[in-house]
């Protein structure tokens, strides 16, 4: 008996030593969770000699942490196994007396009889990897893998998942364990295939496209690998999931892009042709086929030379060889107009650009060709039309120049001295032809009377010039007729014009100033039809406006034509002008105005007529930086102050 006891003790001691040599900590508890036995590794982990640990609650000996907080005693794997009689497993943070770090703890139920449940457990110190067995390292590697890894039990439910799985599903390990494969993978149809494959003992691999609870798409590469026992029975299966959402989406985007490009190439009206380094056509779009008249079969494999005009084709190979061997590009990247050749040999103008594409070691050339036959035709038409318009415009210009010459022939000589009176004027039409007219006319015996007039026909250009010319002729005719009868009344001349030029005749009105100067007496009698733009400038610079008259010509003289008179002495001048002068506007929007004109007249009262005109002309040019929009006319007549001009007698 004693021998048996000694042998038993020796066996126990050997077992104890054997257990102590194992790297994993091993323990068992009684039915209330007190430590019954543990190996040395466990004691090292707990930080106390074994004798002091026995009989104490394991939840106190191994206080566990999870997510930075102490683990509730009820959630301790030992407590859970004692409560439900199931295996419990977990990775925890441990901060005991012996050491600190991550541990992996498994707890199995041990039923000594039907009523009492004890537990047996193992603890693996994960941070002590160096001393771990290769199998343990593999376990940790699986647990920490970036891929989501799960173990599926034979009944198709998940029995373990790693951290990556937890992260990818947003569920904790405890929440995942026990779920069916379908729930875990998220696609019923594929799960059926997987399970069928599993039952047949094969590996299933494929992609699973699913949406999570928030509707976000997830594509995962899933591999399901069965594990067999030595007897060939399936023990469980390992599921590895790899998130390929980003990869799949970028591939899909690339496919879509390619499809769109293809559609564009098919629809585009430009011919797009791709050839290799020696000019062999590798691709051509439908537009290229219809533009050149070839079928796709004829086009592919042919040389691009067949698309070039006969005079260019022989040199084409040399061009390409020269470029390919490192020569200067003559056409690459340059858009230019050239001729192309259809299958029937006809030539047509094209816009042609070519670009080089390198794929790996290959060099491809893509030409974009646009048929510009129609554009060329219309360019030619437009050119022709333009030439014809230019010719017509030249003819109109010539006519206008001639008309302007005719109009100018009605103007008096620029500077004139007649019977002791001097005379000067400016006429600046805003078109080639003006609506302004001015002039002087000698009347009476020996030309004693000098008739002066200035006319402004509304508007300008050819119609205004025609009316102006007609008015001048009528005025001269009337003035001479009346003068022949010894009458020089300006009012009578205006009444006569009023009858001949009613508003409705030309649809435009005129203003007109007409006066007669007696060169002997210096008396100036005048009247105006709405044109009081007339001053007497006295030799001392004083100004008197000549404002007698009626309203504009052509509306029936409702106010009659009142006559006025002024007596001129030596050095006095009469200045007549049109509103184009005082309404002249420069680019700043300033208006010339009487405010500028009248001081200038006063300032040049001492000059002769031509001196005053020259000063005025210079001032207009200094003021106006843009072309005038109305005709400008000014007429100055005066009695010179010099003695040599005053002795004229009739």
């Amino acid at each position, binding site marked *: 008996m004693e021998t048996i006891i000694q042998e038993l003790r020796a066996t126990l001691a050997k077992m104890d030593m054997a257990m102590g040599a194992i790297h994993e900590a091993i323990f068992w508890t009684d039915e209330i969770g007190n430590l019954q036995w543990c190996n040395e590794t466990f004691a090292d982990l707990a930080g106390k000699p074994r004798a002091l640990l026995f009989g104490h609650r394991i939840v106190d000996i191994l206080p566990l942490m999870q997510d930075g907080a102490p683990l509730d005693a009820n959630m301790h794997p030992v407590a859970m196994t004692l409560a439900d009689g199931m295996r419990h497993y977990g990775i925890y943070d441990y901060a005991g007396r012996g050491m600190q770090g991550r541990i992996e703890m498994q707890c199995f139920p041990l039923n000594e009889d039907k009523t009492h449940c004890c537990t047996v457990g193992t603890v693996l110190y994960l941070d002590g990897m160096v001393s771990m067995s290769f199998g343990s390292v593999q376990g940790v590697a699986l647990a920490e893998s970036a891929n989501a890894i799960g173990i599926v039990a034979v009944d198709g439910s998940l029995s373990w998942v790693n951290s990556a799985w937890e992260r990818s599903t947003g569920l904790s390990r405890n929440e995942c364990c026990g779920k069916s494969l379908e729930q875990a993978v998220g696609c019923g149809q594929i799960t059926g295939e997987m399970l069928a494959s599993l039952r047949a003992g094969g590996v299933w691999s494929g992609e699973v496209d699913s949406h999570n609870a928030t509707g976000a798409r997830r594509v995962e590469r899933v591999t399901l690998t069965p594990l067999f026992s030595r007897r060939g029975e399936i023990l469980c299966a390992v599921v590895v999931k790899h998130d390929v959402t980003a990869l799949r989406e970028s591939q899909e985007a690339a496919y879509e892009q390619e499809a769109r490009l293809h559609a564009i190439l098919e629809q585009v009206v430009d011919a797009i042709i791709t050839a290799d380094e020696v000019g062999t056509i590798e691709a051509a779009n439908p537009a290229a086929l219809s533009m050149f008249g070839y079928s796709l079969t004829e086009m592919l494999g042919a040389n691009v030379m067949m698309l070039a005009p006969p005079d260019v084709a022989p040199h084409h190979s040399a061009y390409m060889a020269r470029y390919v061997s490192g020569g200067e590009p003559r056409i690459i990247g340059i858009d230019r107009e050239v001729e192309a050749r259809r299958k029937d040999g006809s030539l047509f103008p094209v816009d042609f650009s070519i670009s080089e594409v390198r794929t790996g070691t290959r060099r491809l050339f893509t030409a974009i060709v646009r048929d510009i036959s129609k554009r060329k035709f219309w360019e030619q038409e437009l050119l022709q039309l333009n030439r014809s318009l230019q010719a017509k415009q030249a003819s109109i210009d010539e006519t206008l120049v001639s008309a302007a010459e005719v109009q100018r022939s009605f103007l008096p000589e620029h500077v004139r001295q007649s019977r002791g009176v001097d005379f000067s004027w400016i006429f600046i039409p805003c078109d080639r032809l003006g609506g302004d007219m001015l002039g002087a006319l000698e009347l009476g015996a020996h030309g004693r009377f000098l008739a002066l007039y200035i006319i402004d026909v509304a508007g300008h250009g050819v119609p205004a010039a025609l009316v102006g010319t007609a008015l001048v002729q009528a005025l001269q005719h009337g003035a001479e007729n009346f003068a022949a009868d010894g009458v020089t009344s300006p009012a009578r001349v205006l009444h006569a014009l009023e009858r001949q030029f009613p*508003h409705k005749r030309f649809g435009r009105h005129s203003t007109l100033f007409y006066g007669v100067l007696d060169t002997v007496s210096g008396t100036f009698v005048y009247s105006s039809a709405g044109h009081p733009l007339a001053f007497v400038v006295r030799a001392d610079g004083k100004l008197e406006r000549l404002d007698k008259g009626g309203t504009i010509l052509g*509306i029936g003289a409702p*106010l009659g034509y009142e006559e006025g008179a002024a007596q001129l002495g030596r050095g006095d001048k009469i200045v007549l002008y049109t509103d184009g002068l005082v309404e002249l506007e420069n680019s700043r929007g300033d208006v010339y105005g009487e405010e500028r004109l009248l001081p200038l007249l006063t300032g040049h009262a001492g000059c002769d007529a031509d001196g005053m005109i020259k000063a005025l002309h210079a001032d207009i040019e200094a003021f106006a930086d843009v072309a005038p929009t109305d005709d400008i006319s000014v007429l100055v007549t005066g009695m010179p102050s010099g003695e040599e001009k005053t002795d004229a007698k009739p």
Partner: protein
Amino acid sequence: MRNLELVESVHGDVAVLTLSGRFDATAASGVKEQIRQMAVSGHRNVVLDMAAVTLLDSSGLGVLVASLRTLQGYGGRLAIGGVEQKVRVVLELVKLHKVLEVFPDRDTAVRALHTGEGAVL
């Protein structure tokens, strides 16, 4: 440079055409045609509100004369209601203020065409 804006309104049996901006060659034919249309459509008495006209040139004057003739042809009247100093000077220069009926403002002009009262400028 602002183009001339035209706004038409009717006050009883008097039609009012309000002009604002430059009444020059660019605007002339538009105004002339507008008044002719008004006359054709039965508005024989027309007030031209020129209070906001900033410039009146010889083309504008031509329109005033032509429009006066047109409306008189239909047995109607043309009255000017309100003119700025610059425009008044132009009208006075060519003595058209004595030919056209010019009133201090639009409302006076409208009342005058109702009652047949004369110009008060």
